[in-house]
C-alpha cells in the first residue's frame, strides 16, 4: 500500500521536475520514465535542438543518479566507451594492470548520436545494454543499478552514419520520437532558456527508490485477454507465420522479437499504475504499441509505395487484431 502511494507520488514529482526543463513532449517524458522504471533503454529520435540531451541531463538531476554522456563519433573506439586495462605502478613501484572504467560506468548514460559510431563501437554497447555488465580481458564488471541508456539519433544528416544493427535496436525498450515543438511551446522554450541554460530540476528520487518502484509494478495484474491481445499484436507483426494477417503480409518485412512482448507487458503495468489504474487495460497496450514496435518492425517497399510509415502500419495492426 505504501509502495503504491509512493509510486504515484514519485512519478508525479519526477514529471513536475522535468517540466521545469522540458517544455511539452509529455508523451516522451512519460515513456522515458516508464522505461527507466522498467529498466529498459530508450532510443530517442529527433532533429537537433528539440531537447534530447537536455531531457537526459534533466533526468539525471531528477533521479539523482551518476550521469555520463558519450558523444558517438566514427572514430570512437569500444574501449572509449567501456574502459580499458592500463599498466600502473603501485605504491611499491611494481607494475600492475589496473582497469580504467569508461564512461559507461554510470547509472544514466546518454549515448548521443549513437548511429555515428562504427558498428564495432555500437556492438560494445550490446552487452552492457542487455545484461548491464561489461567484460574486458575476461573480467566482467557489473553496472550499478539502476542502469539506463538513453541513446539519441538524428533522422537527418544520414551521411557518415551507421544504422544500428537490429540486434542492438531490439535492446531498446522504446524508440521515442521527439517532434518539433509547437509555436507556443517554442516560445516557452525561448523564454525559459533566456534565464539560464542550465537544468533547474532538482533530485526527487534515488536509485533504490527506482528499484523499489520496479518491484512494485511487477505485481500489477494483467488479465488473460489483455495478455493474449498484447501477444497477438506482437505476433501480428510477423508476415511469415501461419495465419498472418493481410497487413503484415502486405507491408511488413520482418516483425518484432519476443522482447517486444516482454516490453509491452512490463511497460503497460507501469503505465497503468502511472495513470492511477491497478490493472493493465487494452488502452495501455495500444498506447505503448507504438514506442515498443516502431523500431522492431521493418516495413517493406509496399508500405513505402503506399506512403505508409511504420506508425501507420502499427495502427492498421491494432485495428486488425481482435480483442
Amino acid at each position: 500500500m505504501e509502495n503504491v502511494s509512493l509510486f504515484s507520488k514519485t512519478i508525479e514529482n519526477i514529471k513536475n521536475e522535468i517540466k521545469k526543463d522540458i517544455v511539452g513532449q509529455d508523451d516522451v517524458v512519460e515513456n522515458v520514465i516508464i522505461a527507466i522504471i522498467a529498466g529498459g533503454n530508450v532510443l530517442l529520435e529527433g532533429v537537433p535542438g528539440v531537447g534530447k540531451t537536455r531531457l537526459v541531463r534533466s533526468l539525471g538531476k531528477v533521479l539523482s543518479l551518476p550521469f555520463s554522456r558519450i558523444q558517438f563519433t566514427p572514430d570512437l573506439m569500444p574501449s572509449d566507451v567501456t574502459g580499458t586495462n592500463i599498466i600502473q605502478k603501485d605504491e611499491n613501484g611494481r607494475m600492475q594492470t589496473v582497469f580504467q572504467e569508461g564512461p559507461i560506468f554510470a547509472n544514466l548514460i546518454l549515448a548521443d548520436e549513437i548511429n555515428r559510431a562504427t558498428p564495432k563501437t555500437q556492438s560494445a554497447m550490446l552487452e552492457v545494454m542487455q545484461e548491464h555488465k561489461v567484460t574486458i580481458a575476461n573480467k566482467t564488471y557489473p553496472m550499478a543499478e539502476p542502469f539506463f541508456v538513453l541513446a539519441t539519433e538524428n533522422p537527418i544528416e544520414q551521411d557518415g552514419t551507421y544504422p544500428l544493427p537490429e540486434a542492438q535496436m531490439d535492446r531498446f525498450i522504446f524508440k521515442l520520437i521527439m517532434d518539433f515543438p509547437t509555436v507556443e511551446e517554442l516560445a516557452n522554450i525561448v523564454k525559459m532558456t533566456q534565464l539560464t541554460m542550465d537544468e533547474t530540476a532538482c533530485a526527487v528520487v534515488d536509485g533504490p527508490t527506482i528499484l523499489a518502484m520496479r518491484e512494485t509494478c511487477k505485481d500489477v495484474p494483467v488479465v488473460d485477454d489483455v495478455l493474449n491481445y498484447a501477444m497477438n499484436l506482437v505476433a501480428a507483426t510477423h508476415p511469415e507465420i501461419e495465419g498472418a494477417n493481410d497487413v503484415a503480409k502486405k507491408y511488413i518485412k520482418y516483425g518484432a522479437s519476443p522482447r517486444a512482448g516482454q516490453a509491452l507487458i512490463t511497460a503497460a503495468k507501469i503505465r497503468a499504475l502511472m495513470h492511477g489504474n491497478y490493472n493493465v487495460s487494452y488502452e495501455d497496450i495500444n498506447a505503448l504499441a507504438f514506442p515498443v514496435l516502431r523500431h522492431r518492425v521493418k516495413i517493406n517497399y509496399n508500405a513505402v509505395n503506399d506512403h505508409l510509415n511504420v506508425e501507420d502500419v502499427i495502427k492498421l495492426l491494432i485495428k486488425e487484431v481482435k480483442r
Partner: protein
Amino acid sequence: MKESFNKFRKKMLFEALIKSSLIGLSVALIVVTIPKLIVHFGKINISEFFDLILLLLFNVIFILVFGLLFLITFPKELKVAKRLDKDLGLNQKVQTMIEFEHDDSTIVNLQREDTLNILSNISLKKLGMKFSVFFFVLIGLACALGITVAAVEVYEKPPVVTPEPEEPKYDLDNWTVRALLDLIEVVETSNVEKDLKDPVVNNLKELLNSLETVELESEMKKLVTEIIADSLLRLDLINSNNEVFNEIKSSSSSLVKDIAVQINALNVSNVNNCIENIYVYLCGDPTTTSGALLEFDNDFRTVIVNSKLNKEERLTKALLDFANELKSLEGQNNLSEAVEVVIKKHKENILNILRIQAENKLVIEYVVSQLEIIFGLKEPEINDNEGDGTENKGQINETEPPKVNEGEFEGGYGTGEVLFGSDDIIFDIEKGSVEYGEVISKYYGTLIGMFNDGTLPEEYKELFDKYFDGLFGFYEEE
C-alpha cells in the same frame, strides 16, 4: 462485498431471461405459423388434430430454444465483467477483479477495492439492455407471421350471403274469385253428403274471404294447403272404403279379394259385378250351394267379424248384414233362391253406400285438384286419353267437374283445354306455354285429320276453314 457487482449481474440475468423468452417465442411462432399458413393458403386437407399438434410443437420448440439460449446467455461472472468493462468503459477493471479474485497481493487488493468503489458509484441504469438487429428482425418476423395467421383466422372470408329473394306478393284477382265461386257452386250442387258438403263449402267461402286480406303468396298457399288437408281429412272420416279394403284384402278367397279391390276403388259397377260373381259362385251349382255358402261365410263374414272395423259404420254394417243374412240361410231348402233374394236385397244397399262415397271422393278430389291448379300448387296434369273417349269413367278428370249427375252439372271453370293465356303466349296442355299460332296450327291439323277419317261431316269443313282463316289472319296481323 460484491453487491455492487451482483446488482449488474441480476440485471443481465433478467436480460437473458427476456431475450431467451422472446427469441424462444418468436422461433416457436415462426415454426408454427409457416405450416399453418401453408395449409390455409394451399387449401390442404388436414387432420382435426392439426392445431393441437401445432400447439404441442410450439411448446416444445419454445422450451428447447428458451433453454438453449438461456444456457448460452446465462450471465457468468466473467461474462458480466467483460460486459461491464466494455459498456461502462472500465478498462478491464471488473474483468481483472474477477480473474484475480483469489489473489491476495497488495495491488490486487487495491484494484479490487477501487473497482468495487467505482461500480457502487455507477447507476444500474447506465447498463442498458443490448438487443441485436437479428433479435428485432426475428421478433418482427414472428409478429408479422402471427398477425397474418390471426387475421386469417379471425377474418375468414365471410360466407356469401345471398339475399333472400323478396317474398312474392299475392293479390286476389277476379279470375281467382270467379274460379273459387265456380268451385263452391260445383260442391253445393253436387250429391256429396251434407256432413261433408257443408264444411267444405264453408271452408271455401272462408278461404275466399281470407284471401282478400292476404298479401303474401306464402300466406295464401298456407291457407289453401290447410283447406285441402281439412277436406281430405273429412273425406277420410266419412268414407270407410279404404278401411274395409285394408281389412278384407287378406282373405284367401279371390272373390272377396276382388270385391275388396273394387270397394277400395269405389267402382260401383265393378262391385256390382263382384256381387253377381258371388251369386254365381254360391248358386251356379245348386248342389254345392250349401258348402259354398259355408266357405264364403268363412272367407267373408268371419274376416269382417274378426276385423277391427267399426261394425256400426254404414258400409261395414251393410256388408256384415249381407254376410249374416247369407249365413242365416244355412240349412234352408231351396237355398239358391233364398240366396238370390238376399243378394238382391243387400246389393242395392251396398251399392248405394258406395255411390255416395264415390260421389264424396270425386267431389273432394275435384275440389283439391282445382284448388291446387287455381293457386299454382301443382301443374295441371296432362290427359293422355284426350278426346279418344276411352278414359276410365271412374277417374276424375281434373279439368272437368265430376260428372256423377250430368244433367245437373253445366258450365263452370276448367272445361276447355286452354287454361290461361295472353295475346302472344297461350297455355297448351301438352307443351305448357307456346305461341298462339302454334296452337292454332295444331288444332287446325287435328280438325283436318278428323275430316279426312270421317269423324266430322264434310259439310262443316268450309265453316271451320273460314273460322281458322280468321284466326290465322288475326295472328299474322298481330
